[in-house]
C-alpha cells in the first residue's frame, strides 16, 4: 500500500480552519475547551463534571469519517507500527503523558496556544521537539 504523504497546503489549511472553528464554537456555545485527552478522561470519569457533553463530542468525532464520505473523504486503514510492543508502549505513553501534562495536541497545541498561554506553549514546544527527535532516531538513527 502506498502511503499518501504528498504536500497539500489547500486541504491542510481547510482542515485546520475546521479544527479551529470547532474549538471556537465549543467555547462560544458551551464554554468548554476542545481538548481531546481531557474530554476522553472526563468520559472515563477520571475528571469531575458532566460526562454527557464529552461523550457527545467524542461520538461526533468518531462518526465524522462516515459522514465525510459524502464530501469524498473517507478513512483509510491507519498505518501502524509493525511491532505490537511499540503499539502498546506508544498508547500507554500517549495516555499517561497527556494526562500528566494536562493536555495534548488539541488542548495545549490549539486551544492553549490560541489563548497565548505560556504553559501550553511550553508543553507544545516540548512534545513537538520530543516527537521530532523520536522520528529522527527511528527513521534515520540506524543510517548513522
Amino acid at each position, binding site marked *: 500500500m502506498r*502511503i499518501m504523504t*504528498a504536500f497539500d497546503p489547500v486541504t*491542510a489549511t*481547510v*482542515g*485546520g480552519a475546521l*479544527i*479551529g*472553528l*470547532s*474549538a471556537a464554537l465549543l*467555547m*462560544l*456555545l458551551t*464554554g468548554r*475547551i476542545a481538548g481531546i*485527552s481531557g474530554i*476522553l*478522561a472526563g468520559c472515563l470519569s*477520571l475528571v469531575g463534571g458532566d460526562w454527557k*457533553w*464529552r461523550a*457527545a463530542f467524542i*461520538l461526533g468525532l*468518531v462518526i465524522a*469519517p462516515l459522514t*465525510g464520505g459524502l*464530501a469524498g*473523504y473517507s*478513512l483509510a486503514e*491507519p*498505518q*501502524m*507500527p509493525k511491532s*505490537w510492543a511499540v503499539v502498546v508502549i*506508544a*498508547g*500507554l*505513553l*500517549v*495516555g499517561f503523558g*497527556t494526562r*500528566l501534562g*494536562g493536555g*495534548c*495536541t488539541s488542548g495545549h497545541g490549539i486551544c*492553549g496556544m*490560541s*489563548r497565548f*498561554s505560556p*504553559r501550553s506553549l*511550553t*508543553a*507544545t514546544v*516540548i512534545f513537538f521537539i*520530543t516527537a*521530532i527527535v*523520536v*522520528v529522527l532516531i527511528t*527513521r534515520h538513527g540506524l543510517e548513522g
Partner: protein
Amino acid sequence: MMVIIASFACGLIFGWGLLISGMVQPAKVLAFLDIFGNWDPSLAFTMAAALAVSSIGFALTRRREKPLLAPQSFWPSASSIDAPLVTGAMLFGIGWGLSGLCPGPALENLTTLSPRLLVFVAAMIVGMFLQDQWQRRRAAQIQREADTALAPADG
C-alpha cells in the same frame, strides 16, 4: 440538551478537520514530524489555520460574560510551568513520535476497526487510568507526610 447537541456538532466538525487535513493518518503526521527526512510540511498549514480561527473565536468569546448555551465558561486556570507539565509533554511526545497518533486521530480511526489501532486506543485508556492512580497515590503520600510532620506538635 442544547449543550449536548452543540458538543456533538463540534465533535463532527473537529473530525472533518482532522479527516480533510490528513492529520487523521498516522503516516501523514510522521511525515510532518520527519523534518530531517522526506519532510511533508502540510500539517504546519493545518496548525496555522486552526490557530488563526480559534484565536479570533476565543478573543470574541472572551468579551462575553457567559457562553450562549451554558451558565459559565470553563477557561483553564492552571498557569504553572512545572515538572508534571514538562514530563507529561515529553512522555506524550515519545508516544506520538513512535506512532504518529495523538488522542483525537486515535479515536477518529476507531471505525476502521484496525486491530493495532484498537490495541493502541485500549493502551491509551489504560495509560490514563494508570496516571490517575499514580496521582491519587502521590496525593495521599503527600497528605501522610504532612500529617506526620504535624504529629509531634499534637503530642
